[in-house]
């Protein structure tokens, strides 16, 4: 997720695989084919999981991955030594596919962007017209939110606010747009709303930039990895991060783990509209294609991915995992992110204003 997390320095998740094969599965190491991939760091825990490694071993594969920021994978990383690239967003994958002339891509799992918050904030923002009951799940009205931000609204200026009278601007906490995929996804959402549709032209970019820039700039310092603000949300709570942008998978993963880090007053809101962070695998060589195919078709891998909070190509896996949770099966108001180049240009224009 951090652009600066050098690929060359990245962890090689090899030891575990070898050990497991030697100890367990009865497989023959000599028959395992090593496949190397560069992946968005949100999927690191998935690929590091022993059960996942075991499934790949059953199919004769040993998958080695290096984590990197999705934007970095698309722009600066040297992909020659990899069999596949697996960024966390469709625009990044689209660029890699074009650059490397890949025949196809796989989108085995996805996760919508969400806003994690707390009960008192839900109440406040419901009164302010930002949180709505939505189609079976609570939504965060991005248009109404942009309206409040445009007026520079502070929390303590919300009428009847006694539960969170903070003298700071009402802003969703995000990561640094210069570093992080989730911030780019947030820009995809907010630019869509500010523009009244996907931004596709230079005019559109110029029109939305003032409104979307301040969503980032007014926060001041932001962290570079999506884990940072989400951990603050969990540990420092409402005072520090009343509203935090996250991947749905981060929240669901915590709930599934059952480690009681998600307390009863913590609530998930779905931006309306939202975008999906589509984890899209671009095969660079035949072996990488095999990994894409397995991730898409193997039921066990699908089931495992769902336990990490990802929505899977076969929705049953995810539905099974969340069946007792307050997580919607289907998200209705989903829009497409802009093209990679458009998104990059807008991110750079924002970066220049820091």
């Amino acid at each position, binding site marked *: 997720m951090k652009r600066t997390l050098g690929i060359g320095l990245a962890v090689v998740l090899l030891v575990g695989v070898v050990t497991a094969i030697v100890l367990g599965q009865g497989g023959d190491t000599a028959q395992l084919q090593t496949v190397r991939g560069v992946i968005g760091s949100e999927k690191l825990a998935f690929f590091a999981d022993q059960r996942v490694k075991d499934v790949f071993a059953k199919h004769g594969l040993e998958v080695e991955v290096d984590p990197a920021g999705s934007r970095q994978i698309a722009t600066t990383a040297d992909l020659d030594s990899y069999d596949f690239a697996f960024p966390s967003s469709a625009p990044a994958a689209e660029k890699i596919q074009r650059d490397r002339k890949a025949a196809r891509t796989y989108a085995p799992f996805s996760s919508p962007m969400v806003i994690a918050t707390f009960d008192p904030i839900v109440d406040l923002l419901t009164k302010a017209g930002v949180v709505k009951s939505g189609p079976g799940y609570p939504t965060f009205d991005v248009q109404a939110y942009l309206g409040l931000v445009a007026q520079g609204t502070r929390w303590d200026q919300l009428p009847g606010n006694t539960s969170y009278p903070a003298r*700071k601007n009402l802003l969703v906490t995000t990561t640094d747009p210069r570093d992080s995929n989730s911030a780019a996804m947030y820009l995809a959402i907010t630019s869509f709303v500010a523009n009244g549709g996907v931004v596709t032209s230079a005019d559109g970019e110029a029109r939305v930039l003032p409104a979307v820039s301040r969503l980032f700039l007014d926060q001041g310092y932001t962290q570079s990895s999506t884990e940072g603000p989400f951990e603050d949300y969990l540990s420092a709570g409402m005072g520090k991060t009343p509203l935090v942008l996250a991947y749905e998978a981060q929240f669901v993963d915590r709930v599934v783990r059952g480690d009681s*880090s998600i307390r009863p007053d913590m609530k998930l809101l779905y931006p309306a509209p939202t975008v999906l962070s589509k984890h899209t695998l671009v095969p660079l060589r035949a072996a990488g294609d095999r990994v894409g195919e397995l991730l898409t078709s193997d039921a066990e891998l699908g089931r495992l991915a769902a336990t990490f909070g990802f929505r899977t190509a076969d929705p049953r896996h995810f539905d099974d995992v969340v069946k007792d949770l307050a997580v919607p099966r289907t998200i209705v108001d989903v829009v497409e992110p802009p093209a990679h180049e458009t998104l990059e240009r807008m991110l750079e224009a924002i970066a220049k204003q820091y």
Partner: protein
Amino acid sequence: MIRRLLPAAAALALLAGCSDSPDPATPVGDPTPGTLRVLAGSELADLQPILEEAAEATGVTVKFSFTGTIEGADKVASGEAEKGFDAVWFSSNRYLELVPEAQKRLGTPTKVMSSPVVLGLPAEKVKELGWDTKRVGWAEIAAAAGAQKFTYGMTDPSASNSGFSALVGVAAALSGEGSALDAARINAVAPQLKQFFSAQKLSAGSSGWLTEAFQRRARGEDPGAEVDGLINYESVLLSSPQPLTLVYPSDGVVTADYPLTLLTSATSDAREAHQKLSDHLKSQDVQRKIMETTHRRPATPQVQLDAKFAVRDLVELPFPGSQSAVDGLITTYFDQLRRPSRTLYVLDTSGSMQGDRIDGLRQALTGLTGADESLAGRFSRFHGREQVTLLPFSSSAKPALKYEVPQDDPRPVLDQIRTTATNLDASGGTAIYSSLRGGYDVLRQQIDADPDRFTSIVLMTDGENTGSEDVLDFQLFHQALPQDLRGIPIFPVLFGESATAEMEQVAKMSGGKVFDARSRSLSAAFKEIRGYQ
């Protein structure tokens, strides 16, 4: 604090294998499996017992080398840190992440614990101010400070994170717009900030020394004027032997979150060590222990907050988003906002200073005129409005050279100081105490004309006193001084063959502190002293 620091320092020496003079590039040795070499903020010293248990549990030993936040940022940005360290551990990564050259060298962070920077005052003072029955914001605190209803001590924002956080916090809160600071917003609230800082009567380069000085003054062991309260970490205030009531500003605080951060250059061994140690430190039992023994808040959400943390949900104030905004704020603090300084340098230019030593002294002074272009160096230069007096001496005191650095165009005066410094020459004897005594004549005049300043004396000498007045004579002279002069801290610098015991005595009688330049450059010592002026 002293009690806590000493065993930690001893443990460090022990862990480091007691090498006599560590290589400055690798002060904690070469990479070793099972060892994490960490460049850290000095306040982490109190974690030593926790880390010793961690070493037993995980097999990962931490070796610390301590530095200030901005100096640390310098070292990470220049690449110097990665030559000798695997990880950095400061109270916050915020400043580091704003420096692009440093940011790109930072890898995975693990936030281990947290502590907000708040105001601690005696209970009766809080009551007197009427703050015991309601929560107040920074604007009310600043107004009360401006009306001199209370006084406080705070660390130097360029040397220590607690002062830095307080400065950012109060500026962000007062700016009122609730969004992150930029230069225009800082200027708009400058008058209020000035009011707030007018009540700051004590400065220090480290949180630890600040707390000690505060306590010594409260007990009357130190001639400096008593200070009502402290701005410091909640954890430090909660462990104060004199109970303080903590004032949590209602509009928000800036919180230290202590991220143990791997450098991207770390080897896979170090990477593994970092992971093991992080997992251990974030486990619930260890988190509970950190909370109980160090009074910091846990970072693991499952651990219940202890009742001693009076306010649980703290609003976090926005932090500036660019290095230029932060640097601008610090510069404005020094040149415009805080009470200006008056610094007297009593400088040994005797014959024994000839050669490298006088060169070192010239460089040290020149560095403070803006020649030192490192991040830390920029903030430690003589500040706008500062009165600087150089008093060279040998067999007797030479004429005092007085300067006042203008707020708006400091360059010409800084250049004059630089010229004077470069022309210092060494010859003659070492009449330390008569010269030091003479310094008080200069200060008396200056104080009579303009009393409201941070006033201090730096005493630099490289050898034994050869003058007719000795330390006992000086002590008698010092005891008889009126309070405003007696309370001026003296910061002796140990150099060459300095008489250590005498220098300690001089520091103690004046409520000052000894700085050692025997194992490092005079420039480094002079720079460190800036935090106390």
